[in-house]
């Protein structure tokens, strides 16, 4: 009887694949953003701050939201539990980004999944080069098919004006991710 070939992926891999886990719940969407508290979770990547600040400014103009800014502790990894708790307490919605690298795009998706599970709708903004890694991380975190907003890569090298332009372009997608009956993004509950 020959010996079996041993599997090098470890005992945990089976339990962390997306198929084996129940889907993490997504927060209920808001009826509207009018007067809501918006937290901007800035990941410190080049141009992330002006990008999110412009998104915030446009939301303030359009919906009269109040804005809070927060800087990610470490762009490369998901936020620690205490920060998540504070965000949940302080925010009606969170906007995070800009995921424009291997680790930070994954971390933005991971933060989004955790905050959604805690009841806060999130719009994570990721550059289109990192869709596979954001999707893989969301699936790892139990939220396959997790929805986020995308903007063209790169963001880091854009001029100030171009950053503002991009923020304006992504705004509808961000809003659609956060509220019900969005015209541009299908309701993920329908796909469950």
């Amino acid at each position, binding site marked *: 009887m020959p010996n*079996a*070939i*041993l599997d090098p992926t*470890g005992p945990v891999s089976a339990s962390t694949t997306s198929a084996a886990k129940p889907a993490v719940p997504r927060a209920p969407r808001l009826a509207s953003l009018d007067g809501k508290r918006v937290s901007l979770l800035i990941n410190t990547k080049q141009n992330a701050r002006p990008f999110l600040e412009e998104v915030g400014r446009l939301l303030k103009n359009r919906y009269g939201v109040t804005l809070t800014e927060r800087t990610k502790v470490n*762009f490369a990894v998901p936020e620690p539990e205490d920060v998540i708790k504070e965000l949940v307490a302080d925010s009606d919605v969170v906007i995070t980004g800009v995921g424009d*690298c291997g*680790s930070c795009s*994954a971390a933005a998706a991971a933060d989004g999944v955790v905050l959604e599970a805690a009841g806060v709708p999130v719009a994570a903004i990721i550059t289109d080069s990192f869709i*596979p890694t954001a999707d893989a991380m969301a699936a*790892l975190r139990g939220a396959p098919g997790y929805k986020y907003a995308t903007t063209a890569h790169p963001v880091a090298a854009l001029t100030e004006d171009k950053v503002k332009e991009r923020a304006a372009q992504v705004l509808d997608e961000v809003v659609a991710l956060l509220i019900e009956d969005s015209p541009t993004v299908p309701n993920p509950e329908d796909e469950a």
Partner: protein
Amino acid sequence: MTAANTDGAAAGDAVATDASTGPDPDEAQRAIEYCYERGWSDGLPLVPVSQPLLDAFLATTDKDSEEIIGALEQVGRDVNVRTAAINAAMAGCKPEYFPVVLAAFEALMRERAARGGGFQSTSGPSPLIVVNGPIRKELGFNTAGGAFGPGFRANATIPRAIGLIVRNAFGIHPHVLEQATQGLPGRWQVCIAENEEESPWEPFAENGGVTGGVSAVSATLTRTMEFVDNRHTPNPEDVLRDFQDTIGRIGSLIFPLTSVALVLCPEHAQMFAAAGMSKADVQNWLIERCGRTGAEFKSKGKAEVARTGFRGEYEGDDAFHKILAGPASIPVIVAGAKNAAISMVVRIFGEWSGTAVPVGEKK
């Protein structure tokens, strides 16, 4: 030329084994292909691992096979001794290398950049592993010419084992969670055994806190390297200025501070030592001088590198901006043959933790 023939090679072919008593190449090939099909390979053939081989690895350590030796929280994965051993065996390690693999992995996971997003990074960083002490000779590490490889089983398979652990145990696969833009040559292939015999200075492990000639491993993540070939001058300061020039290249600088490992050939190291310089003297000479003016950074669009600290102000066009923070930002290792004055500047990804890990002995 050769006829397809399952009974043996065609007449005239060189035959290395006796078909009746030697290993079965066809069976070996099937096992290798099986490993490819499962997605376990880094692209090169793997050694298929059986329980007896795993047992031989586990017998080299006092650690429990279920002990967790590293975790990557962001992907929700960890690795235990057993899984590490399977990957080390697959990489082609001998069982007796396994304590070095464990020490190298522990050293690497001490690095903030490795625990953070390093393995997922667009930079595609690769470990630089440095082995010190008697284990170098005991396990047959190459301590002389061709320090960066290839050609030697211990040097070649131990870093590969780390790469396979990251791939298989942490689940970091290219194009998915691993997002290297171009990666770098020699990724998962660099394990230097320091040339202690021809180094004029203390072993590198001592700089990492392991003294007394104990076998130890140091590791950090790196982003490629550039050689400095300087066999042109008897003046050590000229050679230091040559290093200064290479270390100060703007292309690789993205933050106000950087780190480089200086892998000196014995000839350069001995030249500095003969001039009365300790390792610290070499480090301090370079720490004081490596950098560029604000204007030089600015002309390449990198004014933001010339800031005081990570979020500080631009220091000005004329200000000389130093890029090395201290000795931990420029570890000095001696490696290679004493046959030419060729050294290597290795770009560190993030920062070396400044620690070495003793190789665990089976009690």
